[in-house]
């Protein structure tokens, strides 16, 4: 499934601004962006991609249990993440590395999780409300909706001040839309008119299953049956991702109720490092989407605005430095402590878990230095 007439786009694949009756509504959001902000969009996309490639290398070299690449989806993520306001809460799935970076998560924390050192990795309270990754597909859409219900209940939203009114954005994939949880989240969001944006990254595949198995209609039409407005955007266009997210989130925070964006994009890499996509999708499809690459397109646009080689060279250098720093810090990660197994199962002491922790300590102490039991 590629772009349709309904697909909103501000930046054409050739890198030029699309001016039309439909884009007129969104162009003002872009006009307000400074050159510095536009450069920042590019910078984060490039650094995230380099980070992603480095993580893939680390996985191949046995340093990571698993890697989940986000390559190809940078524009959908960077545009939408820059459109959030600092008070907003972000509920990601597991591939939103660029969003994490923008919200200030140390990317090493994502690596720690996929290296097998932790199930979580970061505290959302300390990372600009970027919640931890959720691996059970679709679950986080209900959590996000409940959180947004809470904002309504405690009056933290819809006061009329966009600088402080809070809203929620939740990320999920095309495959996840088939989960009952996602439909239930849409029902609750509509019933309680939550200040919430459902941000679907339709990257065309759920592992080996094409989106056509999940839905016979374009997915942006689904929320309308729940009474939630939905639009479809070119997810490889960072500008439309930014403008539509900004608009929808601000409408939601102003009391307008939930909104839904389907961002059409493509998972350029494997589903995860365990996957072999050549088993199920043709190279020609990958090549088609390579032509629509989000970073190349935005670079063309910036060059058209007068950005010169120096800037692009600086960004490339920064990305390479970032990647080598991440590599060094990953290699320096130590083993987790066994107490992690027990210490946070409950928030208060628990007799059985306490006994087992003690048993393990004694058991491990019973091995002498040669590893033999005494």
């Amino acid at each position, binding site marked *: 499934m590629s772009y349709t007439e309904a697909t909103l786009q501000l930046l054409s694949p050739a890198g030029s601004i699309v001016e039309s009756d439909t884009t007129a509504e969104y162009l003002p959001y872009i006009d307000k962006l400074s050159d510095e902000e536009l450069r920042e969009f590019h910078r984060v996309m490039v650094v995230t991609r380099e980070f992603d490639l480095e993580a893939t290398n680390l996985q191949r070299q046995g340093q990571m249990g698993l890697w989940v690449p986000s390559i190809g989806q940078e524009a959908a993520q960077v545009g939408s993440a820059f459109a959030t306001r600092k008070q907003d809460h972000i509920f990601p799935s597991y591939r939103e590395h660029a969003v994490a970076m923008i919200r200030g998560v140390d990317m090493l924390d994502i690596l720690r999780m996929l290296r*097998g050192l932790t199930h979580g990795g970061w505290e959302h309270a300390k990372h600009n409300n970027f919640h931890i990754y959720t691996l059970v597909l679709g679950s986080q859409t209900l959590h996000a909706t409940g959180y947004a219900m809470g904002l309504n209940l405690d009056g933290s939203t819809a006061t009329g001040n966009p600088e402080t009114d809070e809203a929620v954005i939740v990320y999920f994939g095309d495959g996840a839309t088939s989960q009952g949880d996602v439909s239930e989240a849409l029902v609750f969001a509509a019933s309680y008119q939550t200040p919430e944006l459902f941000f679907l990254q339709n990257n065309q595949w759920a592992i*080996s*299953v094409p989106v056509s198995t999940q839905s016979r209609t374009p997915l942006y039409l689904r929320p309308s049956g729940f009474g939630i407005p939905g639009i479809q955007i070119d997810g490889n266009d960072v500008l439309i991702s930014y403008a539509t997210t900004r608009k929808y989130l601000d409408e939601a925070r102003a009391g307008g109720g939930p909104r839904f964006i389907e961002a059409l994009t493509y998972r350029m890499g494997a589903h995860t490092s365990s996957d072999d996509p050549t088993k199920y999708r043709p190279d020609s499809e990958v090549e088609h989407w390579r032509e629509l690459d989000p970073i190349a397109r935005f670079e063309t646009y910036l060059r058209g605005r007068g950005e010169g080689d120096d800037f692009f060279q600086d960004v490339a250098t920064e990305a390479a430095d970032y990647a080598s720093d991440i590599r060094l810090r990953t290699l320096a990660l130590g083993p*987790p402590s066994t107490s992690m197994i027990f210490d946070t199962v409950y928030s208060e002491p628990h007799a059985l878990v306490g006994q087992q922790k003690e048993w393990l300590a004694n058991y491990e102490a019973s091995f002498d230095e040669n590893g033999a039991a005494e």
Partner: protein
Amino acid sequence: MSGIQAMPMAKALNAGLRQAMLDDPKVLLMGEDIGPLGGVFRITEGLQAEFGQNRVLDTPLAESGIVGTAIGLAMRGFRPVCEIQFDGFVYPAFDQITSQLAKMTNRHEGTLTMPIVIRIPFGGHIGAVEHHQESPEAYFAHTAGLRVVSPSNPHDAYWMIQEAIRSNDPVIFFEPKSRYWPKGDVNLDERGPELHSTQVVRAGTEVTLLGYGPMVSVLLQAAELAAEEGTSAEVIDLRSISPIDYDPIIESVRKTGRLVIAHEAPGFVSVGSEIAATVTERAFYSLEAPVLRVAGFDTPFPPAKLETTYLPDADRVLEAVDRALAY
């Protein structure tokens, strides 16, 4: 295929599924990524190409949907075999399995059967992220109306999957994913033991070690180490978690007087707890020591780098053996 062939359990399951589909045109496979990809563990590799999309359904991504529609298909006379991609993703289907599938025959006063198999790759030792290494068998064993089994080797896998598919009751089929790849001989001509029977896989006299699925190879290893230290251990492969074939277990305990039960699942309210209680009831006077359980801790399955600390290994089994012998 015929004769005795060495193959990994993954291939044995593939061959068993294929044979079941050849034997009965009503057998259908359903699941996520089981078509062109052949499943994330390649258990269904080649089957969609051979039998077509009407026999091997690459479903939408919804476990409740998979099991719920399998129930409707079974009502219509099909015999669905559902694949749940990983142990930790069965829970979205929990309601359909426990409230619907398990009770359907009873609700229909026996006039409707539910010949559905739910295959679940389970257990640890694959270094995966959260939700990919769990052992949820106790939830299902606790639910009346479900049969629960787990093969430990390729030969059993080949025959047990076919028997499970022939069963007119729902069968939850736990596949030990850490045992998918080691090879073993499969006798393709000679049917294995009955689906719900327990097997003694190593004879011994001083202590009985009991487990199922991924734990059987650990118990055999422990028995080998025990033998080196002069202790004779009998090893029993439970194979069927519900119902449990107790006679061989009681017989063994009468001989050895000691029973150590091991599983990866947490020990609290577990399969091991159930067996310990029943053996105590049925063989109290034969016991020289309390029945001991070696289990995963009563915590969530930890991050991968801690899995070998969490999972019972031969040393932990031997520690329990020492305790049992010390009584």
